[in-house]
């Protein structure tokens, strides 16, 4: 009788501790909000359902079609994902894939799956301000003028 009680009690203890462990991480991860919305809720639901399950396939297999065949459908574009899901860089903060709040990093860190895309691809939207700051003259005429100036300066020295 006592042995039976002991086994039931130990089972109970194991159950409670298991529940406790699972209870610790039961809160869903907080991921960054997308900047653009869909027209309807159905479109959004379909997008979330599809991407949660298939994003790796879409990124992995469609990349070869893009690279080798030049097929560039917007729905399989990594650039489009980044432009919508990662905030634009500001003066003070550029969200990179090494930061925990980066859209991709949130889940990838959680499940310990390495992110290789961003060793080559940029991990944030293009920043218009940066692009204009480093802007070089665009027209051939501007360039010629700029070069002429530099060469005359060099000659003068």
């Amino acid at each position, binding site marked *: 009788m006592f042995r039976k009680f002991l086994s039931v009690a130990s089972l109970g203890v194991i159950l409670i501790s298991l529940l406790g462990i699972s209870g610790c991480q039961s809160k869903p991860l907080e991921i960054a909000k997308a900047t653009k919305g869909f027209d309807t809720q159905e479109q959004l639901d379909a997008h979330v359902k599809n991407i949660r399950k298939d994003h790796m396939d879409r990124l992995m297999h469609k990349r070869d079609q893009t*690279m*080798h065949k*030049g*097929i560039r459908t917007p729905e399989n574009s990594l650039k489009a994902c980044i432009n919508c899901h990662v905030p634009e860089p500001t003066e003070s903060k550029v969200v990179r894939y090494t930061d925990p709040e980066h859209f991709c990093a949130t889940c990838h860190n959680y499940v310990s799956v390495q992110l290789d895309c961003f060793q*080559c691809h940029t*991990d944030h939207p293009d920043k218009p301000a940066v692009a204009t700051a*480093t802007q*070089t003259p665009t*027209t051939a005429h501007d360039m010629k003028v700029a070069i002429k100036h530099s060469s005359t300066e060099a000659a003068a020295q």
Partner: protein
Amino acid sequence: MSDQNINQNDSGQINSYRRKFLAGLAGITAVVTVAPGILLRQVQAKPAGDAVTSKVRWGMLIDTNKLSDGGDACIAACKKEHGWGDEKLSRTAQDAQWIRKVKVTEKLTQHVTELPVMCQHCETAPCVDVCPTGASFKRDDGIVLVDKHICIGCRYCMMACPYKARSFIHETLIDQRPDTPRGKGTVESCNMCVNRVDAGKKPACVEAAPQAMLFGDLNDPKSDISKALKQFGGTQIRADLGLNTGVRYWGI
């Protein structure tokens, strides 16, 4: 009340679809009116979902006599488009070489020719022949590319290229251009602005020096570049190798 709401939502949705459709129409008419004939035939954007075909072969013609700066404007435009040339940790010998200026002086006359040299997009490209993984490949429309997903960085293609057009990335990079992924341990070269070409635009260097450079379809006898080459011919660098390059020159 709830019915009304649903109706409003429906009409809003229809309106947004209608707006997109009309915007698409407006875009098409704009293209037709802005670019009658020539542009439409020259560089036509294929639908995004279609694969490239071998009916087209993209090529370039460079008139070095009209490049008063020897191609500096092209090089600057290329750097800006693809975001290379700012590798801080690399030595000069390791620098990226998408496009570079080559100066040739004839010994007898001392005549100097400056020309921009980049990947010549050969029909029978040596870099494609030697690549052990298939990372170096030629697209059906004649553009030679490196697939960095499968490039192992062996640099065999750099050895094989007679134009010294390829370079290797030696350092970890961040803040790449969105349309030009580049990463440590892979080989890179001029990609004829494949992202722009697929979108129906001209390469950045051609836009930077429109007076001296032509871009178009070598397979289309009606294109400007084909007409110019048919009438006046064009020089290939190292024509003796028989690579049938996609980039041709005048004035060298």
